[in-house]
Structure formats: C-alpha cells, structure tokens
C-alpha cells in the first residue's frame, strides 16, 4: 500500500496523505456567515461524527466537501484534488465522495436497481451487466436485494435509506458523507440503518457522519467534532469527548441531548 504512488498527491505517500483537508474554510450566505475558519483533516479510514445544535453549520460543512455548496474562502482538498469552482475538479471529487441524505432522495421514477445503476453507467461508463452485478452485490450487503425491482415508494423509510447507502456505494467512493441519515426515520427503523453504517465503518470506509445518535458516535467514531455557530468548538476521541468535554457550549449541548 505504502509503495503505490498516488497520481493526485505525488509528494506524500497515500498512506500518510489525508483523505480530506479543509484549511481556513469560510462560507457566506449573503451577509450571513455560515462557516468560520474551518480546519479539518481526515485520514483515510477515519470515522468522524459531527454534532451540534441545528444551524451550527454541520450540514453546510459536509455539503462543501462535495460542492453541493460552494465555499467562499480557504481551501478544500479531497483525495489529493484541490476542489475549486471548476466543473472538472467538482466532478472528480464527486466521483470519490458518496453522500446519504436525511430525506433519502431516491429517484421515484426508477426501480431500486435502476437507482443504483444510473450513475455507474452514465458517469463511469460501466456496461449494464457490470453495473447491475455491482448493484445486486451491494443491495445484498444492505439486505434489500429482494426489493430490487420495486419502486422507492413501495419501501419503508429504513429500507429506502439502506438503498440510498447502496446506491452511493455503487460508485465505489473513497469517502462517505452522511447528513443526518436517521433523522427522518421512524424509531424502529433507526437501528437497521445504523447497523448498515457500522458494517461500512468496520470495512474501513472513510466516513463523516452528521448525527445526533451518540450511541453510534461512541461505538464507531475515531473523533467527535462539536460545532456551534459555524465554528468547530471542540473535537476529541469519543471517550474524552463524552466524559470530559472542555467547553461550556459542548457541555450544555451534551446535557441537552443526553438528558433523555
């Protein structure tokens, strides 16, 4: 692994070069500052949980990583590619970065299988047979292969979210972003989605997860990052983060969400 030379980052060895680097990133919505001086480096295989009150900029932060939102200042590098406004770098980064949304966002006019094969065929130029083979393997992995020919509306929320995970994996991403993946689910469906994500983490996927599921954070995260008002307030290993939070705002937040 260490001997393979990455074309994108010729200087550093890929084992050491971080997968995602954000340097002094700022994001403005008109006069409103959504992100302030974000510095974040994510190693390959690292699992990060982002938490914080609503409006703290966690979703905005991960949406900057695949350029669903442009950023105003600073620098973002993903897999050695410096993400700019150019379509070329945006496309390159998006090929490496999968994303799962709160509202699943499956394509309602396509079957589960078609949802999974669309981008591999259109973007990666895979044959239908190859794309379908990959899709079936990944649908099997999220335990939903028997629903492959159904339409999204025929599935439960938990099943739809597992399809969304499989659909993203079909692109063979190096990084997976999760934007509150369980927030829109009925309570009894949260576990099946979290279990799928835990399986993915155990396989070594680099993950950034925006969630309030602190059990998941404790079990899976290498680092928990707490944000408030568009800034990273505190970060640490989950053990330290939950037992000995340093900042008053972190303590207040943890008090709020761990109370019940």
């Amino acid at each position: 692994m260490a001997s393979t030379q990455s074309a994108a980052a010729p200087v550093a060895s890929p084992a050491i070069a971080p997968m995602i680097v954000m340097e002094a990133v700022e994001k403005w919505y008109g006069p409103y500052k959504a992100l302030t001086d974000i510095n974040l480096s994510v190693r390959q295989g690292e699992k990060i949980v982002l938490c914080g009150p609503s409006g703290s900029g966690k979703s905005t932060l991960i949406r900057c990583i695949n350029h669903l939102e442009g950023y105003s200042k600073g620098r973002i590098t993903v897999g050695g590619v410096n993400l700019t406004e150019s379509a070329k770098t945006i496309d390159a980064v998006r090929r490496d970065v999968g994303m799962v949304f709160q509202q699943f966002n499956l394509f309602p006019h396509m079957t589960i299988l078609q949802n999974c094969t669309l981008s591999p065929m259109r973007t990666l130029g895979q044959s239908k047979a190859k794309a379908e083979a990959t899709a079936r393997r990944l649908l099997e992995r999220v335990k939903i292969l028997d629903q492959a020919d159904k339409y999204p509306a025929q599935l439960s929320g938990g099943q739809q979210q597992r399809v969304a995970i499989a659909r993203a994996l079909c692109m063979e991403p190096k990084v997976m972003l999760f934007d509150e993946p369980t927030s829109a689910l009925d309570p009894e469906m949260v576990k099946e989605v979290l279990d799928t994500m835990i399986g993915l983490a155990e396989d070594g996927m680099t993950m950034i997860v925006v969630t309030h599921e602190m059990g998941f954070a404790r079990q899976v995260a290498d680092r928990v990052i707490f944000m408030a008002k568009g800034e990273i307030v505190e970060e640490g290993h989950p053990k330290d983060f939950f037992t000995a939070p340093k900042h008053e705002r972190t303590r207040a937040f943890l008090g709020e969400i761990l109370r019940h």
Partner: protein
Amino acid sequence: MSSQEILFLLSGLKWTLALSAVAFVTGAIFGLLVALARTSPNRIVAKAAEYYINVFQGTPLLMQLFVVYFGLPLLGLKLDAWIAVAIGFTLHASAYLGEIWRGAIQAVPRGQTEAASALALTYWPRIKDVVLPQALRISLPATVGFLVQLIKGTSLAALVGFTELSLAGKFIANQTFRPLVVYSVVGLLYFIICWPLSLYGARLERKFAAASR
C-alpha cells in the same frame, strides 16, 4: 348543408389539425430549450429566456401572427401563409410550453438534483434521466390543457387568410346564408377534437396522482 360543403369544412379541419400538430411539435422542441434556458444556472441565458417568455405571453397571439405575416415581408422575407402561421404559432407555443415546463422543472424537489449531483452525474444526465422524467409527469395535465388551447387558438390563423376550419366555416356560412347551422357544426367539430383531449388530460392527472402516492 350539402355533402360538398361538409367536405369543405372537413378539409378546413384537416388544416386546423395540421397546424396544431406542427405548432405543438416544433413548439415543444423550442419550448424544451426555452425551459432549460429559463432554469439554466447561467444567469444571462436564464434572463434571455425570461424576456422571450414575457414578450410572447404579454402580447396577443393575433399581433404575433400579424407581425410575422405582414411584418416580415417588409424586411424582404416573403412568406407563404402556411409558413407564416406555422412560425407564429411555434413562437407562441414555445413560450407557453417553456413556461409550463419551467414550472414543472422547478417543482421537482431540490433533493433530486442534489442526489444526482452527489452521484457525480453531470448536467445532461441529471436533466435527462432525473429531472425531466419527473417534470414531464408533473407538467402533463397542463401540457395537454395547453394543447387544447392551441387547437382552438389556430382559428386566429383565419385572420391572415389561412383556410383552416373557422375560415372554411365563414365561407360556407356566407354562401348558404345559414350561419347558425354552419357555425354550430364548426363548433361541434372543435369540440369533438378537444373534449377527448381534456378527458385524457384529467385521466393522466388522476393516474399520476395515484402513482406518486
């Protein structure tokens, strides 16, 4: 009415249908371009499409036909009545369909485009495979409704001397001095064409409403 007179009305109907079909097909092609331009991330393109729509929605169709039929020859472009009305109705239809489809494109939830973008799909596959199929479904009842308006609207072509159904009716009415009978028959012919379309539009609306549930 003699059978000869009825045949004359039917030949008028043929031209009404031909003009409607041409206007709808070419209007749909340009209308799709207008809708894509109108929703383009490029602000200049979007603004140009907006002005185009505003001009054709904000002026009477009859004026548009007059400009094309009487105006263009003054610039040295001598057009056959058939070509002139076809151009006039195409411009008209493209603006209206462009606006209908603009609304439908924007009615597709933003999460759909975002999911497609996150999957690294570029603009064309995003539009073609994800947005347009959903937008078409949303727009279909309004599109069929516009087609009905368009068919009835082709009667304005009579005013530049294009012998479609209405003008054919006028000729027969003048000849027979029985305008009540003749125009009733003409109206009935329009109704026979338009009513099933309206029913079809309503059926599609119910079908898609059920499918998206």
